[in-house]
Protein backbone atom coordinates (compact mmCIF):
# COMPACT_ATOMS: atom_id res chain seq x y z
CA UNK A 1 0.00 0.00 0.00
CA UNK A 2 2.74 2.48 0.89
CA UNK A 3 4.50 1.60 -2.38
CA UNK A 4 1.35 2.61 -4.25
CA UNK A 5 1.17 5.92 -2.37
CA UNK A 6 4.83 6.62 -3.19
CA UNK A 7 4.23 5.83 -6.88
CA UNK A 8 1.11 8.01 -7.12
CA UNK A 9 2.78 10.93 -5.31
CA UNK A 10 5.81 10.72 -7.59
CA UNK A 11 3.64 10.39 -10.71
CA UNK A 12 2.27 13.84 -9.82
CA UNK A 13 5.49 15.38 -8.44
CA UNK A 14 7.80 14.51 -11.34
CA UNK A 15 5.70 16.03 -14.16
CA UNK A 16 4.99 19.04 -11.94
CA UNK A 17 8.76 19.52 -11.58
CA UNK A 18 9.09 19.33 -15.35
CA UNK A 19 6.34 21.92 -15.90
CA UNK A 20 7.46 24.36 -13.18
CA UNK A 21 11.12 24.16 -14.23
CA UNK A 22 10.16 24.71 -17.84
CA UNK A 23 7.90 27.70 -17.15
CA UNK A 24 10.47 29.33 -14.86
CA UNK A 25 13.41 28.72 -17.22
CA UNK A 26 11.51 30.01 -20.25
CA UNK A 27 10.34 33.11 -18.39
CA UNK A 28 13.78 33.91 -16.95
CA UNK A 29 15.70 32.97 -20.09
CA UNK A 30 19.04 32.51 -18.33
CA UNK A 31 21.72 29.80 -18.37
CA UNK A 32 21.36 29.71 -14.59
CA UNK A 33 19.08 26.79 -13.60
CA UNK A 34 16.38 28.88 -11.90
CA UNK A 35 13.71 26.26 -12.61
CA UNK A 36 15.35 23.42 -10.68
CA UNK A 37 16.34 25.83 -7.90
CA UNK A 38 12.67 26.82 -7.62
CA UNK A 39 11.32 23.27 -7.32
CA UNK A 40 14.07 22.22 -4.90
CA UNK A 41 13.37 25.15 -2.57
CA UNK A 42 9.58 24.78 -2.85
CA UNK A 43 9.77 21.02 -2.25
CA UNK A 44 11.98 21.55 0.80
CA UNK A 45 9.41 24.01 2.22
CA UNK A 46 6.55 21.55 1.68
CA UNK A 47 8.42 18.59 3.15
CA UNK A 48 9.34 20.84 6.10
CA UNK A 49 5.66 21.58 6.72
CA UNK A 50 4.89 17.86 6.54
CA UNK A 51 7.72 17.11 8.99
CA UNK A 52 6.59 19.87 11.38
CA UNK A 53 3.02 18.60 11.27
CA UNK A 54 4.26 15.11 12.23
CA UNK A 55 2.04 13.76 9.43
CA UNK A 56 0.73 10.17 9.57
CA UNK A 57 2.85 7.51 7.79
CA UNK A 58 0.57 7.34 4.74
CA UNK A 59 1.01 11.09 4.16
CA UNK A 60 4.74 10.81 4.68
CA UNK A 61 4.88 8.07 2.03
CA UNK A 62 2.59 9.67 -0.55
CA UNK A 63 3.33 13.36 -0.11
CA UNK A 64 6.78 13.15 1.48
CA UNK A 65 8.66 10.30 -0.20
CA UNK A 66 6.59 10.29 -3.39
CA UNK A 67 5.44 13.82 -4.22
CA UNK A 68 8.14 15.97 -2.55
CA UNK A 69 10.83 13.41 -3.35
CA UNK A 70 10.01 13.45 -7.07
CA UNK A 71 9.21 17.18 -7.21
CA UNK A 72 12.79 17.82 -6.11
CA UNK A 73 15.94 16.36 -7.62
CA UNK A 74 19.62 16.03 -6.86
CA UNK A 75 20.65 14.67 -10.25
CA UNK A 76 19.52 17.80 -12.11
CA UNK A 77 21.15 20.03 -9.47
CA UNK A 78 24.43 18.09 -9.68
CA UNK A 79 24.37 17.87 -13.46
CA UNK A 80 23.62 21.57 -13.98
CA UNK A 81 26.33 22.56 -11.50
CA UNK A 82 29.00 20.43 -13.19
CA UNK A 83 27.96 21.59 -16.68
CA UNK A 84 28.13 25.25 -15.56
CA UNK A 85 31.59 24.66 -14.09
CA UNK A 86 32.80 22.90 -17.25
CA UNK A 87 31.42 25.77 -19.36
CA UNK A 88 33.74 28.11 -17.41
CA UNK A 89 30.76 29.59 -15.58
CA UNK A 90 32.40 28.77 -12.24
CA UNK A 91 30.77 31.69 -10.42
CA UNK A 92 27.30 30.60 -11.58
CA UNK A 93 28.10 27.01 -10.55
CA UNK A 94 29.11 28.23 -7.08
CA UNK A 95 26.04 30.46 -6.86
CA UNK A 96 23.84 27.50 -7.78
CA UNK A 97 25.35 25.44 -4.96
CA UNK A 98 25.07 28.23 -2.39
CA UNK A 99 21.55 29.30 -3.43
CA UNK A 100 20.29 25.70 -3.49
CA UNK A 101 21.74 24.80 -0.08
CA UNK A 102 20.92 28.06 1.70
CA UNK A 103 17.52 28.39 0.01
CA UNK A 104 16.64 24.72 0.52
CA UNK A 105 17.70 24.61 4.17
CA UNK A 106 16.01 27.94 4.98
CA UNK A 107 12.80 26.79 3.28
CA UNK A 108 12.90 23.44 5.10
CA UNK A 109 13.43 25.19 8.45
CA UNK A 110 10.60 27.64 7.74
CA UNK A 111 8.40 24.69 6.75
CA UNK A 112 9.15 22.79 9.96
CA UNK A 113 8.40 25.93 12.01
CA UNK A 114 5.16 26.49 10.07
CA UNK A 115 4.09 22.86 10.42
CA UNK A 116 4.84 22.89 14.16
CA UNK A 117 2.91 26.15 14.60
CA UNK A 118 -0.10 24.69 12.76
CA UNK A 119 -0.03 21.65 15.03
CA UNK A 120 -0.08 23.99 18.03
Amino acid at each position, binding site marked *: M*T*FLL*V*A*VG*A*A*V*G*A*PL*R*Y*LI*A*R*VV*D*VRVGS*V*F*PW*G*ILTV*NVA*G*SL*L*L*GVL*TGLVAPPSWQ*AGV*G*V*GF*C*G*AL*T*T*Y*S*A*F*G*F*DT*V*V*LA*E*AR*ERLLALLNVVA*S*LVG*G*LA*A*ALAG*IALGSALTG
Partner: protein
Amino acid sequence: MPRVSAVTSAPEPAGLDAPAIDLAGQPTDKEWHVLAVVALGGALGALARYAVERALPATAGSFPVATFTANLLGCLVIGAVAGWVLRPGAHRLLRPFVATGVLGGFTTFSTYTIQVLTAALHSRVDVAAGYLLATLLGALVAVEAGFVVSRALARRRPGSGRR
Protein backbone atom coordinates in the same frame (compact mmCIF):
# COMPACT_ATOMS: atom_id res chain seq x y z
CA MET B 1 28.44 20.27 -24.38
CA PRO B 2 24.73 20.10 -23.64
CA ARG B 3 23.02 23.32 -22.83
CA VAL B 4 22.65 23.81 -19.10
CA SER B 5 19.46 22.17 -17.82
CA ALA B 6 18.94 20.51 -21.15
CA VAL B 7 18.95 17.02 -19.71
CA THR B 8 17.20 17.30 -16.43
CA SER B 9 14.90 20.26 -16.60
CA ALA B 10 12.76 21.34 -19.40
CA PRO B 11 14.26 23.60 -22.07
CA GLU B 12 15.06 21.94 -25.34
CA PRO B 13 18.38 22.74 -26.98
CA ALA B 14 17.42 25.44 -29.44
CA GLY B 15 16.53 24.15 -32.85
CA LEU B 16 16.84 20.46 -32.02
CA ASP B 17 13.24 19.84 -31.27
CA ALA B 18 9.91 21.55 -30.95
CA PRO B 19 9.23 22.79 -27.42
CA ALA B 20 7.59 20.01 -25.45
CA ILE B 21 4.98 22.31 -24.00
CA ASP B 22 3.46 25.29 -25.75
CA LEU B 23 3.24 27.70 -22.88
CA ALA B 24 0.75 29.90 -24.69
CA GLY B 25 -1.76 27.14 -25.29
CA GLN B 26 -2.96 23.73 -24.27
CA PRO B 27 -0.55 20.81 -24.46
CA THR B 28 -1.04 18.83 -27.64
CA ASP B 29 -1.30 15.03 -27.83
CA LYS B 30 2.46 14.66 -28.29
CA GLU B 31 3.15 16.93 -25.33
CA TRP B 32 0.93 14.79 -23.11
CA HIS B 33 3.21 11.87 -24.05
CA VAL B 34 6.14 13.75 -22.50
CA LEU B 35 4.22 14.40 -19.28
CA ALA B 36 3.11 10.76 -19.19
CA VAL B 37 6.61 9.31 -19.52
CA VAL B 38 7.95 11.80 -16.93
CA ALA B 39 5.18 10.64 -14.56
CA LEU B 40 5.88 6.96 -15.24
CA GLY B 41 9.66 7.37 -14.95
CA GLY B 42 9.25 9.51 -11.81
CA ALA B 43 7.08 6.84 -10.17
CA LEU B 44 9.59 4.10 -11.03
CA GLY B 45 12.51 6.17 -9.78
CA ALA B 46 10.74 7.08 -6.53
CA LEU B 47 9.79 3.44 -5.94
CA ALA B 48 13.43 2.43 -6.38
CA ARG B 49 14.49 5.15 -3.90
CA TYR B 50 11.82 4.00 -1.46
CA ALA B 51 13.07 0.41 -1.79
CA VAL B 52 16.61 1.58 -0.96
CA GLU B 53 15.27 3.52 2.03
CA ARG B 54 13.41 0.44 3.28
CA ALA B 55 16.52 -1.69 2.85
CA LEU B 56 18.74 0.79 4.71
CA PRO B 57 16.39 2.35 7.28
CA ALA B 58 17.56 5.59 8.89
CA THR B 59 17.67 6.00 12.65
CA ALA B 60 17.27 9.40 14.31
CA GLY B 61 20.50 11.39 14.34
CA SER B 62 22.44 8.88 12.23
CA PHE B 63 23.92 9.38 8.77
CA PRO B 64 21.15 8.88 6.13
CA VAL B 65 22.93 6.18 4.13
CA ALA B 66 19.98 5.33 1.87
CA THR B 67 19.26 8.83 0.52
CA PHE B 68 22.99 9.48 0.26
CA THR B 69 23.39 6.34 -1.85
CA ALA B 70 20.40 7.10 -4.07
CA ASN B 71 21.48 10.69 -4.73
CA LEU B 72 25.07 9.76 -5.60
CA LEU B 73 24.03 6.83 -7.75
CA GLY B 74 21.51 9.02 -9.62
CA CYS B 75 24.22 11.64 -10.24
CA LEU B 76 26.64 9.00 -11.52
CA VAL B 77 24.06 7.61 -13.93
CA ILE B 78 22.93 11.01 -15.22
CA GLY B 79 26.52 11.86 -16.08
CA ALA B 80 26.94 8.49 -17.78
CA VAL B 81 23.75 8.65 -19.87
CA ALA B 82 23.69 12.38 -20.72
CA GLY B 83 25.40 11.83 -24.05
CA TRP B 84 23.15 8.91 -24.90
CA VAL B 85 19.85 10.68 -24.22
CA LEU B 86 20.98 13.97 -25.82
CA ARG B 87 22.51 12.47 -28.95
CA PRO B 88 21.03 13.61 -32.27
CA GLY B 89 18.42 11.13 -33.39
CA ALA B 90 17.59 9.87 -29.89
CA HIS B 91 13.90 9.09 -29.39
CA ARG B 92 12.19 12.27 -28.21
CA LEU B 93 10.74 10.54 -25.15
CA LEU B 94 14.06 9.00 -24.06
CA ARG B 95 15.37 12.06 -22.23
CA PRO B 96 12.09 12.92 -20.44
CA PHE B 97 11.67 9.30 -19.37
CA VAL B 98 15.23 8.49 -18.25
CA ALA B 99 16.64 11.83 -17.05
CA THR B 100 13.64 13.91 -15.99
CA GLY B 101 11.53 10.95 -14.90
CA VAL B 102 13.53 7.99 -13.56
CA LEU B 103 16.65 9.82 -12.34
CA GLY B 104 14.73 12.91 -11.21
CA GLY B 105 12.37 10.68 -9.23
CA PHE B 106 15.17 8.47 -7.87
CA THR B 107 17.12 11.42 -6.48
CA THR B 108 15.70 13.97 -4.08
CA PHE B 109 16.66 17.35 -2.71
CA SER B 110 13.83 17.87 -0.19
CA THR B 111 14.60 14.70 1.80
CA TYR B 112 18.26 15.78 1.84
CA THR B 113 17.59 19.25 3.28
CA ILE B 114 15.14 17.86 5.85
CA GLN B 115 17.63 15.17 6.91
CA VAL B 116 20.38 17.78 7.36
CA LEU B 117 18.07 19.87 9.56
CA THR B 118 16.75 16.87 11.47
CA ALA B 119 20.28 15.77 12.34
CA ALA B 120 21.15 19.33 13.42
CA LEU B 121 17.95 19.60 15.51
CA HIS B 122 18.91 16.30 17.20
CA SER B 123 22.13 18.03 18.26
CA ARG B 124 24.12 15.99 15.77
CA VAL B 125 25.78 18.93 14.05
CA ASP B 126 28.67 16.66 13.05
CA VAL B 127 26.30 14.32 11.17
CA ALA B 128 24.42 17.29 9.65
CA ALA B 129 27.57 18.98 8.36
CA GLY B 130 29.17 15.72 7.25
CA TYR B 131 26.05 14.61 5.38
CA LEU B 132 25.55 18.06 3.80
CA LEU B 133 29.09 18.17 2.44
CA ALA B 134 29.50 14.48 1.62
CA THR B 135 26.36 14.47 -0.53
CA LEU B 136 27.25 17.73 -2.27
CA LEU B 137 30.85 16.84 -3.06
CA GLY B 138 30.00 13.19 -3.76
CA ALA B 139 27.25 14.21 -6.19
CA LEU B 140 29.49 16.56 -8.16
CA VAL B 141 32.27 13.97 -8.33
CA ALA B 142 29.69 11.33 -9.35
CA VAL B 143 28.39 13.44 -12.27
CA GLU B 144 31.96 14.02 -13.42
CA ALA B 145 32.74 10.31 -13.06
CA GLY B 146 29.64 9.59 -15.13
CA PHE B 147 30.95 11.90 -17.86
CA VAL B 148 34.26 9.99 -17.82
CA VAL B 149 32.41 6.68 -18.20
CA SER B 150 30.31 8.17 -21.00
CA ARG B 151 33.38 9.39 -22.89
CA ALA B 152 35.11 6.04 -22.48
CA LEU B 153 32.06 4.27 -23.91
CA ALA B 154 31.88 6.79 -26.77
CA ARG B 155 35.46 5.99 -27.72
CA ARG B 156 34.63 2.29 -27.88
CA ARG B 157 31.63 2.96 -30.14
CA PRO B 158 32.65 5.73 -32.55
CA GLY B 159 29.81 7.99 -33.58
CA SER B 160 27.60 7.16 -30.62
CA GLY B 161 27.40 8.23 -27.00
CA ARG B 162 28.80 11.63 -27.78
CA ARG B 163 28.18 14.15 -25.02
